[in-house]
């Protein structure tokens, strides 16, 4: 029993913090989403109404919610494959026997990951400037027309996707590197003896053995990308024409610009449901491929 008491003393502080400052708010948020908590309720709690599913139903009828959802799905649908492809490619290159100066490249390619998002989003905002930005200058020197990256509704989200890929392809690259390095050399030997080309080795040896890492990377990247917020906040404020309003940015506006906290909580839970669904889908896909 003395052991038990000591054990509780070890875990209690952390558990209390997590319970009070995470689990409790999550449950409270769930409850909030069934009320119309707003600025009036903040002034006088008597102005609070329990509204059941009204927030959720209303959201499903709000055009801006669907726009935000569409923007976010666009970001995830294009950004995640791009990011994974870039990190996988970089990892394959770094892992190949041909690569030199590996430590330098590893650090260089990882550097964007540790930088402060807000700071580098500001840098990219200037790089993407229509007239004086270097990216358009590069395009022009290649003979292409300049693009109004942050002013054209068609190009604003692609610009943010490009930035997001730059920011964290290094992270997944490291995970892939670890996965690649754990593939035993004998598998490649066996494949080579069977006459497999490099491409075939990639398809039949590397990728299947990388599946656990791929799954992990996919889950991390998908759930991370669904939480798109800082980039639109810093670079575009949701503009132009709300083409870069993400679900979280929408939640932030509802919650902290207009103080419709009930509605904002409903948005947060819808987002959570989305991420959960996506994660479960990925796990199900993994299980199916496994058993195949």
């Amino acid at each position, binding site marked *: 029993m003395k052991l038990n008491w000591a054990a509780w003393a070890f875990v209690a502080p952390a558990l209390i913090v997590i319970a009070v400052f995470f689990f409790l708010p999550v449950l409270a948020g769930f409850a909030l989403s069934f009320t*119309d908590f*707003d*600025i*009036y309720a*903040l*002034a*006088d709690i008597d*102005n609070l*109404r329990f509204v059941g599913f009204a927030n959720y139903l*209303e959201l499903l009828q709000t055009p801006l919610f669907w726009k935000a959802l569409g923007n976010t799905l666009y970001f995830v649908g294009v950004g995640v494959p791009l990011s994974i492809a870039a990190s996988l490619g970089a990892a394959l290159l770094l892992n190949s026997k041909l690569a030199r100066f590996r430590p330098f490249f590893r650090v260089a390619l990882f550097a964007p990951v540790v930088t402060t998002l807000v700071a580098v989003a500001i840098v990219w905002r200037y790089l993407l400037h229509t007239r004086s930005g270097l990216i358009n200058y590069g395009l022009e020197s290649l003979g292409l027309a300049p693009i109004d990256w942050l*002013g054209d509704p068609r190009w604003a989200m692609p610009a943010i996707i490009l930035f997001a890929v730059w920011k964290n392809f290094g992270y997944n690259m490291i995970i892939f590197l670890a996965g690649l390095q754990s593939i035993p050399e004998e598998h490649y030997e066996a494949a080579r003896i069977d006459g497999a080309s490099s491409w075939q080795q990639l398809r039949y040896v590397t990728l299947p053995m990388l599946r656990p890492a791929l799954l992990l990377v996919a889950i991390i990247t998908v759930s991370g990308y669904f939480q798109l917020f800082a980039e639109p906040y810093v670079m575009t404020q949701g*503009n*132009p*024409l*709300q083409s870069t309003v993400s679900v979280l940015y929408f939640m932030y506006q509802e919650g*902290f*610009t*207009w*103080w419709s906290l009930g509605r904002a909580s409903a948005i947060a839970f819808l987002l959570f449901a989305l991420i959960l669904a996506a994660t479960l889908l990925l796990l199900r896909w993994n299980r199916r491929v496994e058993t195949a």
Partner: protein
Amino acid sequence: MRIILILVVAWALAGCKDSAHAPTVIRFWAMGREGEVVRQLIPDFERAHPDIRVEVQQLPWTAAHQKLLTAFAGEALPDVAQLGNTWLPEFAALHALDPVQPSVIDASDYFPGIWQTNVIDHVAYGVPWYVDTRLLFYRRDLLAEAGYAAPPTTWSEWTDMLRAIKQRAGPDRYGALLPLNEYEPLLAFALQQEAPLLRDGDTRGNFRSGDFQRALRFYREMFDNGFAPATNANQISNVWDEFARGSFTFYITGPWSIGEFKRRLPASLQASWMTAPLPGPEGASYSIAGGSSLVVFRDSPHKAAAWQLVQYLSQRDVQLRFHELTGNLPPRRSAWNDEGLRNDVHARAFREQLERVKPASKVPEWERIATDMQLVVEHMVQGSGLTIEEAAAEIDRRADRILEKRRWLLARKEQP
């Protein structure tokens, strides 16, 4: 033991003595240019009141409304703040403001219409700090080149002038600048109409009225005809440079621009710009009753000191000094009799327009409704395919949803 007791008592007394002499620090939040400039008025106040120190925090207009609400929610409001007068009803509804005591401020010297914008349910919650309205700033020389000696007084005159300017100007230059992320020009046109913007005791939107649609059509035609560029304010790198370059002839803005134009336009152009009241559908008409007020928050621990600061900033001479520094216009009639203001050529149009100003609305939700109005109109102008009727209906739909809580609260109040 007794020594310790004596020491403790002595220390406690010393502590009391210190705090009695420590100055009261009051926090004052001000926005934009006013926030930058008001710091210069503080030293004189602190000299006259040596027991009060003022900490000024300057907030950008783009973040101010949100920061104030966040501070309210977090119980972190300052003692005194500048509040845009359209925000006053919101904070009054939140019971956040300390009512104005007649002994502190005398209302009789203020323009009645302006003072009224601060009165909610017969109680004054703020003291007008400066008045603001929107009217035309224009390039006299460019207008003359297009063949017109005087500014427009009706919408049709204005349209003719814009057409003439556009013909001369070519594709890269425009008649007017109306940034799409600013709702004030459209609001002004709407206020020039008879019908109010909200109906049913301000519980539903009235944007589908023929009057509002007329204003919206006039606004939209500015862009359809190429008189104004369909851009946001942040896409224009420097408004004053563009004005100097003649990229546009007319600009709808407020009194702070008098100071900005005087400061930022080259000396050669100082004689070429002028102000004029807004043209109306049939002739001289209304504009927005804007401005900012000074408010003291109800939960402030230093209300007395805070009101002293408000009183100081409301003195006629201090207001005139403030006007000199910012170009903002004083809300006190006695200040307008000052020679400097009387002789300011650019302020004359404001004096005239201030006789014809209408407040937009006094519902707490107004800021949100206006933002949604701006978003819908921006979509429409940028070619989303919405017709005038559809846009008006959409704004009404959003306004109705935003006002739903207000309807419920009012209905509840009426129940016995």
